[in-house]
C-alpha cells in the first residue's frame, strides 16, 4: 500500500522527468535531461527557488523560536496554565486551508488585522496585495496555525529535565536566567533538533495559502515551489517538466534535512 502511494509516484516522477509529451500527437518521447535543462534556464523557476529559500530562512527560525519561547513560558508556574496553553494549541485542530481562508478575511482592508493595528496607532497595511508584505503575511498566518503543535514537543522536552538539576543549581545560587542557559537549553537540544527538521520539511510544502490567497503573486513574490509545480502541471499543462520539478523539490528537502542533521550532530 505504502509502496503504491509513496514510492511508486516518486519513482514515476523521476522517470517521467526524462520524457516530453508532444502537444500535437500526445506521444511521449525520451528527452533525457532536457526538462531539467529547461527548468534551469527558466527565470520563473529560479524566482520560485529564491522565494522558497527566503521563506524557509525566515519561517523556520521564527517558528522554532516562538514555539520554544511559548514552551518555556507555559512550563512556568502560573494560574490555570493548562487553559492558556490549550488556547495556543487550538489552531492546530483547524485544517490548514480553513485557517488560510479565515486569515484571508482577517487581512482584508476592513478586516481584523487592520483594526488591531488601529488600537496600536499604526495605519492600515496592504498585506497580501503588497510585494513586500505578502510573503510575511503568509508566514504569520502559518505560524499562528503551526507553532502550538511544535510547542508541545518542546514542552515534553522541558518536562523531561530532572527537577533535581534545577533545585541543585538554585541552591548553588544560580539565577533563573543562568539556569535557563546552562540547564534547560542544552538538555532540550534533541527535541529542538527534531522540531527544526520536521518544521523545515513541513514548510517546504506550503501550498494552500498561496493557491487560495495570492496565486503566487503579487509579481511572483509568494510563488513557493509547491505552487509553481502545480501551475506548471495544470496551468501550463507540462506534466513532464512538473515531475522534474517534483524531483528537484524532494532532492532539496532531503539535502537540507541531511545538512541539518550533520550540523546538529557536530554540535553535540
Amino acid at each position, binding site marked *: *500500500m*505504502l*509502496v503504491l*502511494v*509513496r*514510492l*511508486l*509516484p*516518486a519513482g*514515476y*516522477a523521476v522517470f*517521467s522527468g526524462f520524457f516530453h509529451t508532444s502537444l500535437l500527437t500526445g506521444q511521449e518521447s525520451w528527452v533525457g535531461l532536457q526538462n531539467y535543462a529547461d527548468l534551469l534556464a527558466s527565470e520563473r523557476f529560479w524566482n520560485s527557488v529564491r522565494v522558497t529559500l527566503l521563506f524557509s530562512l525566515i519561517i523556520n527560525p521564527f517558528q522554532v523560536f516562538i514555539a520554544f519561547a*511559548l514552551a518555556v*513560558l*507555559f512550563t*512556568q*508556574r*502560573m*494560574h490555570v*496554565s493548562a*487553559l*492558556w*496553553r490549550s*488556547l495556543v494549541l*487550538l*489552531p492546530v485542530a*483547524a*485544517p*490548514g*486551508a*480553513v*485557517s*488560510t*481562508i*479565515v*486569515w*484571508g*478575511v*482577517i487581512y482584508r482592508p*476592513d*478586516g*481584523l488585522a487592520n*483594526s488591531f493595528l*488601529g*488600537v496600536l496607532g499604526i495605519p492600515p497595511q496592504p498585506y497580501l496585495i503588497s510585494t513586500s508584505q505578502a510573503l510575511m503575511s503568509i508566514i504569520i498566518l502559518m505560524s*499562528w496555525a503551526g507553532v502550538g503543535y511544535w510547542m508541545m514537543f518542546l514542552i515534553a522536552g522541558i518536562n523531561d529535565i530532572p*527537577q533535581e538539576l*534545577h*533545585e541543585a543549581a538554585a541552591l548553588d545560587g544560580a539565577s*533563573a536566567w543562568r539556569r535557563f542557559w546552562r540547564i534547560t537549553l542544552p538538555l532540550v537540544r534533541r527535541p529542538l533538533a527534531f522540531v527544526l527538521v520536521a518544521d523545515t*520539511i513541513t514548510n*517546504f*510544502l506550503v*501550498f494552500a495559502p498561496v*493557491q487560495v490567497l495570492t496565486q503566487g503573486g503579487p509579481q511572483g513574490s509568494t510563488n513557493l515551489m*509547491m505552487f509553481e509545480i*502545480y501551475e506548471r502541471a495544470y496551468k501550463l499543462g507540462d*506534466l513532464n517538466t512538473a*515531475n522534474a520539478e517534483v524531483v528537484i523539490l524532494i532532492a532539496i528537502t*532531503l539535502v537540507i534535512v541531511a545538512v541539518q542533521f550533520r550540523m546538529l550532530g557536530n554540535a553535540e
Partner: protein
Amino acid sequence: MTAGLPQSRGIAGFVRRSVLTVLGALVGLLFLAPLLWAVSSALRPGAEVFRYVNPLQWRTFFPEHPTLENFVRLADTPLGPAIVNSLIVSAVTVAVGLMICAMAAFALSAIEFRGQGVVFTIVILSLLIPFDAIAIPLANLFRDANLQNTFAGLILPGLGNGLAIFLLRQFFLAVPHELVDAGRVDGLGWWGIFYRIYLPLSKPALIGAGLTLFLFQWHAFVWPLLIGSDADHTLGPVALANFTGRFSVDYGLLFAGAVVLIVIPLAIILSLQRYFIQSVSTSGLK
C-alpha cells in the same frame, strides 16, 4: 514546572506567578482572537460581519443578537454536501485504514518472516517522503487509472499511513509473548491471536492511530483539490476555498462553514483526550 524552587514561594513568588499568568493569558487570547472572531461572525447575519470590526470593541468578538441562520443556510450551498463528503471520506479511511495498518503492524511485530527488515525500511522511507510532495505525480497515475472524481480515489492514499503503522507496531512489540503462546495452546491461529489478543489490548494505540488517519484526511487539501474536482466529490476545505473565489462572498456563510470544519476535529480530539490520559495512567500498572 519549576515547582519547589526557593523564589517561587512567598510574596515574591506570588507576584511572579501573577505576572506570568497575565503574560500567559495575553498570549493565549491572542491565539484565540481569530477563531473567536470567526465564530462570532458566523453567528451574525452576513451583512453585519464587518460592522463592528473597526474600531476594535467587545462587539467585534461577541454578537449582540446571535443567530444560527448561517448554519441552517449551509445545507442549501455546495458547502453542506462537501462537508458530508469529508465526513464519509474520513470515516471510511479510519475504518478501513485502521484495519490495514493494524494488520501491517501485527505482521511487522508478532510474525517473523523473510524480508521483514525490507518491509519495515519501506515503511520508514515512506515517512521520509511527504505525501504532498508526490501528490501531483500520483494524481497523474490515478487519472490514468480512472480514479479521478471517485470516492475510492479520494480515500485510497489515506489508508496506508506510515506513522499509524509505526505507532501500532511500537505498541504491539510490548505485548507479552506468553499471551501469544497461551493463545496458541488454546488453538488460536494468527487471525485469532490478532483479533482476540492484540486488538483488545491496544485500544489507546488504536485510538491514536485512528486519530492520525482521521486528521490526515480531514486536513487534506492538495489531494482533494487534484482528484475531487466535480461537484459530487468536492471535500469541505476545497469547497470553502472555491467559495472565496466567487464574485460576491457571503461572509456569514463562509465563517459558518469554516467553524463547522474546525469544530468537528476539535470535538473529536477533546472527546478522545481521556483515552490518552488513561493510557498513560494504566501503563504504569504493568
